[in-house]
């Protein structure tokens, strides 16, 4: 019997607590009119960046596709017949209806090509419109790393430089020589 | 008044006909509810307002709901079997009996003396006073009837477990 009174009292206290909420300010943000403040490091939409030379940074290493926990990245590598030894993706496709914006791809990317930017307004009427192709992803800038150029620092031979000519790179060791 | 009465009477009879001929239990029940509501209207027209209200509340609202509840608990209805059981032959005997009954009662009503009818105003007060006055034993008996009804329903309604069977 005492329990019943206890329950009743608690229920009425509950009513009062909720009723007091009438006089508190709602936490809702009236979004389209009222823009929320986004921190600069907010992670939103994924873009592919270019290096300062205007070339694609992506070398189609598949690390991003491997790292993606929801498998929303699809790409295929190919080599540029003109620029020898330079790889680039033949297609690069992100299905944003699956992407969870976790940023793993960004962390996995060895060339800083894939980056998450603060944009989040991606609503579409049709689901298929959320599949972004390389043309949709590629931007013309360098993103967060303005001076970085992968091929400059990578120890591979490109059409501009030979082995050992990259930045902070020693000339190649002659393995046949006995000198240190 | 009279028109209303005859319409309600027609509804009652037709709905009742459907009740006893329908093969679908829930539909039959719904027809019966309709018949009950029409009957309540007739009660009202006869001056028994309280009875009319009770007819709907208790009969329509409780007893019939109980019926539907049980029909639901019984699971899927064997409509086809019902259809096979309802051969025209089954109607003959009961039909004759009922006709004889109808004739006899009709005869009784026909030869009965006709007094001027007094449809009086609703007398809930009179009903209550009579109920708790001269009919108090009846009320006691009714409560005595309801108690075994309660106990019986409780006892019968329990599903017999496999072990105890």
């Amino acid at each position, binding site marked *: 019997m005492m329990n019943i009174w206890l329950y009743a009292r608690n229920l009425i206290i509950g009513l009062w607590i909720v009723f007091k909420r009438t006089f508190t300010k709602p936490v809702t943000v009236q979004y389209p009119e009222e823009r929320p403040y986004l921190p600069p490091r907010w992670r939103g939409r994924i873009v592919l960046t270019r290096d300062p030379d205007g070339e694609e940074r992506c070398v189609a290493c598949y690390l991003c596709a491997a790292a993606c926990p929801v498998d929303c990245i699809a790409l295929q590598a190919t080599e540029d017949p003109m620029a020898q030894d330079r790889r680039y993706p033949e297609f690069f496709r992100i299905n944003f209806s699956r992407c969870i914006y976790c940023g793993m791809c960004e962390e996995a990317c060895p060339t800083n090509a894939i980056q998450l930017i603060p944009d989040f307004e991606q609503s579409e009427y049709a689901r298929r419109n959320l599949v972004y192709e390389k043309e949709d992803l590629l931007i013309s800038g360098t993103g967060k790393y303005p001076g970085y150029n992968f091929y400059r620092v990578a120890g591979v031979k490109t059409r501009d430089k030979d082995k050992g000519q990259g930045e902070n790179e020693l000339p190649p060791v002659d393995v046949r020589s006995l000198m240190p | 008044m009279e028109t209303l009465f005859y319409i309600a009477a027609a509804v009652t009879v037709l709905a009742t006909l459907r009740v006893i001929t329908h093969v679908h239990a829930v539909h039959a029940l719904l027809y019966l509810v309709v018949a009950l509501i029409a009957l309540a209207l007739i*009660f009202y027209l006869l001056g028994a307002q309280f*009875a009319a209200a009770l007819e709907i509340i208790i009969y329509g609202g409780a007893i019939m709901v109980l019926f539907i509840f049980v029909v639901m608990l019984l699971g899927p209805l064997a409509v086809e079997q019902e259809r096979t059981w309802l051969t025209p032959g089954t109607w003959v005997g009961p039909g004759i009996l009922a006709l004889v009954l109808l004739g006899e009662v*009709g005869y009784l009503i026909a030869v009965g003396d006709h007094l001027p009818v007094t449809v009086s105003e609703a007398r809930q007060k009179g009903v209550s006073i009579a109920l708790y006055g001269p009919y108090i034993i009846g009320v006691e008996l009714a409560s005595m009837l309801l108690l075994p009804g309660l106990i019986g329903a409780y006892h*019968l309604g329990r599903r017999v477990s496999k072990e105890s069977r």
Partner: protein
Amino acid sequence: MLSTPALVLAMMLFSLGLVGLLSRRNILYMLLSLEIMLNAASLAFIAGGARWGQVDGEIMFLFILTLAAAEVSVALGIVLQLSYRFHTLDVDAFSEMKG
């Protein structure tokens, strides 16, 4: 002025209920027919009460209502029990009380 037609109506309803009771094999319909007959009886009581200007008719109706409530609760319990045991509602299947 309505009580004679009401009596006739009660009679018709009673006959219909009777026919239903005797012709249906499903115990559920038999119960429904019983309800119809009870209602016919109460209609007759109320018509009688209206005719003689007495309250006894309505009181009898109240008693019939009580009776019906008790009857239905027990009868439906029996129906459930029969259905669990015999897996049918055929009233002719429940003939274990044969003398």
